[in-house]
């Protein structure tokens, strides 16, 4: 019996290696590895839903020397979403990069990134998290620069350096924890963690470093240029998955590791940063002149919502309130992952057709690609939080928690953020209605368009209506 956790990491790694060896078969091997990884990730999710959580030790080496993997509900939910998105991105990329020179570099780096992501959700100690973070950051920066333009290289160089600074900061926090508690295992450290200056310093360093990687306002400045200049499938992965990994770790450390010392005022600080991110990111997205910049700023705003949960989780009256906020957090994150990936993929199609992505001049281009425009519309609606997307139910719970805990000031922030999101999405969709007739066919390139469309449909109809199974997976 093969270990599903190891398989989830092994499939993309094998993909990366085999494509490096046999570059001529890149697209075929890529799809094969992508399907394998996705199936094993879904296998992990179903197994976790049955049994609560899975653990394994790679190669039978015992911890602390060996590398352990663990999947609980939270990790399994993200693992499943990330692999579905990554599968969609791979299928799309097999068309997008079909006749570009960049494909030789894209596939190995892409699977390296995928390996890092899968390993990150499954890591169970602080140092493996560091390694996966770095692997993720390196491959993401290399992928982002694939378009080879000056703009993209300098933006991704900045991203690389800042990411490195972020992970070094995180690593110093890890070192402080090791000094104090002599262990790196998440569970063990969490059990023995006591309030004190070194724990507080470690908490600040680790959360701070991760916030930089997660582009939490005001540390978001690197994100829009980096994500807007990368090739579309890469932007999709960066915005939907890589940033999500960092904010996931913020939550995971906050809830699992630092639960004892993370106090309400620290949570409030993160929440305020999140609220500012929502307003600032949405406002910038509304003003953006280019489609990809719009999508990138929208990511800044969405990360803000995720941070806004922290003070409300801290203030939740009972376990039930906490649990429903956690589910809402996951719903929002998963929906954003699917929707933003779809949004960027569709953007790429528009950009390829018109040769640019200036919103004011999109005009008939949007109309000549009905399936892609449809994906943009559905994904956009999910980003706004229109029902029945997961974002809608997440915002419902968020507003409810804000009112119930007396932190009513989040309510206008959410309302305003939603209206701004509405503005930036429909500023774009309004371009799709011109007097030119649409082409006779709904779909022109099935693999490229349907992958985007399916991700958007999942974002709009899948995550929200599947809230019950997702809650079961999370064990609440």
């Amino acid at each position, binding site marked *: 019996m093969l270990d599903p956790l190891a398989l989830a990491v092994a499939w993309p790694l094998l993909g990366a290696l085999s494509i490096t060896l046999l570059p001529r078969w890149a697209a075929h091997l890529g799809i094969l590895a992508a399907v394998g990884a996705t199936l094993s990730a879904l296998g992990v999710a179903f197994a976790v839903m049955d049994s609560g959580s899975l653990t394994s030790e790679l190669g039978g080496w015992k911890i602390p020397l060996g590398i352990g993997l663990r999947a609980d509900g939270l990790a399994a939910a993200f693992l499943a979403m990330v692999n579905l998105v990554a599968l969609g991105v791979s299928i799309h990329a097999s068309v997008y990069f079909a006749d570009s020179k960049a494909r030789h570099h894209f596939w190995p780096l892409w699977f390296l990134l995928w390996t890092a992501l899968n390993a990150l959700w499954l890591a169970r100690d602080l140092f493996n998290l560091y390694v996966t973070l770095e692997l993720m950051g*390196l491959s993401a920066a290399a992928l982002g*620069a694939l378009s080879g333009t000056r703009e993209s*290289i300098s933006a991704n160089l900045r991203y690389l*350096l800042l990411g490195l*600074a972020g992970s*070094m900061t995180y690593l110093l926090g890890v070192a402080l924890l*090791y000094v104090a508690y002599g262990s790196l295992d998440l569970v063990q450290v969490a059990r023995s963690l006591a309030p004190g200056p070194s724990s507080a310093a470690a908490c600040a360093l680790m959360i701070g470093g991760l916030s930089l990687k997660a582009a939490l306002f005001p540390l978001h400045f690197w994100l829009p240029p980096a994500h807007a200049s990368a090739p579309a499938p890469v932007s999709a992965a960066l915005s939907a998955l890589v940033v999500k990994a960092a904010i996931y770790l913020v939550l995971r450390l906050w809830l699992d590791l630092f639960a004892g010392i993370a106090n309400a005022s620290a949570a409030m600080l993160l929440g305020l940063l999140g609220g500012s991110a929502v307003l600032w990111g949405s406002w910038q997205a509304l003003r953006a002149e280019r489609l990809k910049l719009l999508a990138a700023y929208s990511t800044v705003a969405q990360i803000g919502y995720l941070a806004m949960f922290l003070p409300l989780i801290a203030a939740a009256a009972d376990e039930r309130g906490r649990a429903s906020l956690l589910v809402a957090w996951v719903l929002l994150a998963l929906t954003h992952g699917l929707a933003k990936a779809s949004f960027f993929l569709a953007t790429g199609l528009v950009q390829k057709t018109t040769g640019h992505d200036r919103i004011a001049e999109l005009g008939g281009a949007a109309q000549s690609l009905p399936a892609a425009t449809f994906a943009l519309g559905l994904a956009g609606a999910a980003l706004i939080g229109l029902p029945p997307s997961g974002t809608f139910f997440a915002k419902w719970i968020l507003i409810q928690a804000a009112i119930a805990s007396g932190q009513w000031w989040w309510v206008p922030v959410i309302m305003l953020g939603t209206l701004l999101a509405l503005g930036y999405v429909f500023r774009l969709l309004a371009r799709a209605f011109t007097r030119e007739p649409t082409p006779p066919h709904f779909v022109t390139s099935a693999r490229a368009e349907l992958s985007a469309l399916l991700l958007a449909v999942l974002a709009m109809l899948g995550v929200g209506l599947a809230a019950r199974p997702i809650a079961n997976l999370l064990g609440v």
Partner: protein
Amino acid sequence: MNPEILITQMLYGCIGLALFLLGIGSFILHEGLWRRLIALNVVGSGVFHVLVAVAYRGLEQTPDPIPHALVLTGIVVAVSATALALAFGRHLEDQNDHA
């Protein structure tokens, strides 16, 4: 614990922290790629210093292997990142030359 070991640990640890702060400060304050890259490597050295100090258990004792493993891995990562940053830098310079 042996005070001599403790002092050694404190000394190296504090130097490590100082290097970290120095590097971060320089990273924030400076613009150019080379300075920032060097600053980041100083930051890395600082963190590794702290970890090596943690591992020290006196001259007679074998050091704690786990921090050493961390430092080794960390160095590999830092070197790769530096290499990638340098490659990016060269690309940018090449494009400048052509422009």
